[in-house]
């Protein structure tokens, strides 16, 4: 039979007898910089960061994506634009020509505020219609107004429209040491972030009108935006988005089976930006409406099939009528086919392409028996006037629904 008892000579668990010199503490100091234990073959990473202070303009709640783009793709400092106030808008209005489109006035007001905050590089995008000329004219106006210590990253300056030239331009203006592999990786992250911000907005607009606890949806939205603002890598973005969506779905709602549904279409900037449209979405939500706002970067820039859209509205327009015209007509038609109770069409004052869309929407409204509310926003538009019109519109569509 075996004996499992430990033998005394093994000394298990007994402390080793230490050398007397080891018992005392030792202090060592070596001159010079820390170095790895042995040579790894890697040189330390070079500092690619640019010290330019880049600022965008205010556009809906895309600021986290702009921040991510600046910090992770351009690898420069980001200066957040202060939240626009009456004073910012008034400033922009004074600096611009009278009947230039309203987004121009909002953006130049933002720029002036950003320059006051210490930004030295302003970003302007390119696109359709008057937007192509925004950057150059705004730079001219700001310089005339006495700001001279800044540069523009104006994508209209890239005449060819090729990706390679855009990259070269960013390198030239903001960061000559831009890392291309890192930039591409993080650009995809910024792309995902935009998609997430839009997906969150869509879910929010669909349900926030029926919240049980007042302000609960807004709280989750703020948490989501701050999580996006804090993101520094692609995993942060995915994680923050998933948590925010779960939190949004977990909120209790009191949604009727057949709620009043309103679709929003309109001019790119004004239809999305709450500062420009006097927070129209929230006003509708407060009335207990399910809102769908189709205009977003995802829908219009990232996942847009121009040919299919044009084909879907062949009976209303034979050619593409302008920058966002086909998009708006097609989505208004889709909404009408899905049986929304009303459509709100938003534009800024003097927006030529959207004015041209109006007769088409009038015809659509007649064909599908859907009421369409046309709203024009200027820097002067009053809150009270908008409330009255929205309430009247809501009463009308709610009554039609009961009948």
């Amino acid at each position, binding site marked *: 039979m075996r004996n499992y008892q430990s033998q005394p000579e093994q000394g298990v668990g007994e402390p080793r007898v230490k050398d007397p010199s080891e018992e005392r503490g030792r202090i060592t100091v070596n001159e010079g910089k820390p170095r790895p234990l042995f040579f790894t073959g890697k040189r330390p990473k070079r500092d690619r960061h640019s010290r330019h202070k880049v600022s965008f303009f205010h556009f809906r709640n895309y600021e986290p994506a702009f921040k991510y783009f600046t910090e992770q793709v351009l690898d420069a400092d980001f200066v957040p634009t202060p939240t626009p106030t009456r004073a910012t808008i008034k400033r922009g209005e004074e600096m611009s020509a009278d009947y230039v489109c309203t987004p121009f006035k909002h953006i130049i007001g933002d720029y002036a505020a950003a320059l006051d905050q210490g930004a030295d590089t302003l970003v302007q995008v390119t696109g359709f*219609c008057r937007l192509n*000329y925004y950057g150059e004219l705004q730079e001219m106006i700001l310089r005339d107004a006495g700001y001279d210590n800044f540069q523009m990253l104006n994508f209209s300056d890239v005449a060819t429209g090729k990706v390679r030239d855009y990259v070269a331009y960013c390198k030239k203006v903001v960061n000559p040491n831009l890392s291309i592999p890192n930039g591409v990786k993080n650009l995809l992250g910024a792309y995902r972030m935009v998609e997430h911000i839009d997906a969150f907005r869509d879910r929010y607009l669909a349900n926030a009108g029926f919240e049980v606890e007042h302000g609960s949806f807004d709280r989750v939205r703020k948490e989501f935006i701050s999580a996006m603002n804090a993101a520094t890598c692609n995993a942060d973005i995915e994680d923050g988005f998933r948590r925010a969506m779960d939190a949004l779905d977990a909120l209790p709602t009191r949604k009727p089976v057949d709620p009043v549904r309103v679709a929003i279409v309109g001019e790119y900037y004004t239809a999305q930006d709450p500062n420009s449209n006097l927070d129209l979405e929230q006003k509708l939500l407060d009335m207990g409406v399910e809102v769908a706002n189709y205009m977003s970067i995802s829908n219009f820039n990232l996942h847009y099939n121009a040919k299919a859209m044009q084909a879907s509205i062949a009976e209303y327009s034979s050619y593409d009528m302008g920058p966002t015209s086909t998009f708006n007509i097609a989505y208004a038609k889709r909404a009408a086919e899905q049986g929304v109770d009303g459509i709100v069409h938003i534009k800024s004052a003097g927006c030529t392409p959207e004015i041209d869309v109006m007769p088409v929407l009038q015809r659509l409204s007649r064909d599908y028996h859907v009421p369409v509310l046309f709203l024009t926003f200027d820097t002067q538009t009053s809150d009270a006037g908008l409330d009255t019109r929205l309430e009247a519109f809501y009463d009308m569509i709610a009554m039609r629904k009961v009948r």
Partner: protein
Amino acid sequence: MSLDFGRRADLADVRRVGIPRALLYYRYGIAWRTFFEQLGCEVVLDAPSDRGTLEVGDHLSVDECCLASKLFLGHVAALVEQNVDAVFVPSLMGYGRFDTFCTKFQALPDLAANAFAVAGQSVRIISLRIDELRGETEESAYLGLAARFGLSHKEAKRAYKAAAAAQRDYDASMAREQEKLVKNLSKLPAQERPLTILIAAHPYVSHDPFVGGVVEDALREQGACVLFADETDKPRSLKRSYEFSHSIPWIVNRELIGSILALHDHIDGIVLMSAYPCGPDSMCDDAIERCIKGKPILTLTVDAQAGTAGVETRVESFVDILSYQKKGGYLNA
């Protein structure tokens, strides 16, 4: 781009084609007329704009439309009353990234069709689309339209060439005449030289008798010599405009700015005229006022309500100021 030659000619029954005397008629009218005459159609033009045209057009349009677009719909309505078979309304997008037209011209055919449909009237529209950035060139657009009239490829090409040449010749003759005028003016001694004023406006504003005609008449009445910024060598003006700006996207505004730069030394003052609310002008006029220095600029905006009322007074006072200035100030008058 595939052309429609050999297919069913769906426009073969169109014999009387109406061309509205508005908007880009003032730029491409000669080409359009020649083209349809070459196709064997009878071309019908309506009368020049007047107050009645505006009233009809205003009634058909959304309130916020620009004055020129309201006039356009008025002209289409006038053509419909003249029993034309179809009205020609092209959709013009542009010739390059910074050589585009205002989006209004892109939307025109659909705008007209929908505006008339909303008003409960019907109008048959024939159209073509020029969008060189996406591969729809001017030539292929005209050939495609000719094919729908049942023409062969060869006949179509001949018609297009004749149209393009006619327009080119006309533009060149206008430019030559103005150049001659400028040359003669510069030969005169400084005391005898009349006040020279440049009208810089879209052609459908400056040459429309209802809109720009009033200004031109008022200037001539004051004894000024009138030059037009759109009657110069267009390709050269377009090239010149890149000295001024690299990102103005509108070809017409570019040509106007190029002409202003070219004629700057020969003129005493500039009249910038626009139809309220003109999108391109809202930005370009601002840029011109900021950057064109050394010449007095009068900015006139004509809208659908007030029309040209008060324009004469403003033009008179502008000319007065300039002539006093020319004589060396008020004291020497």
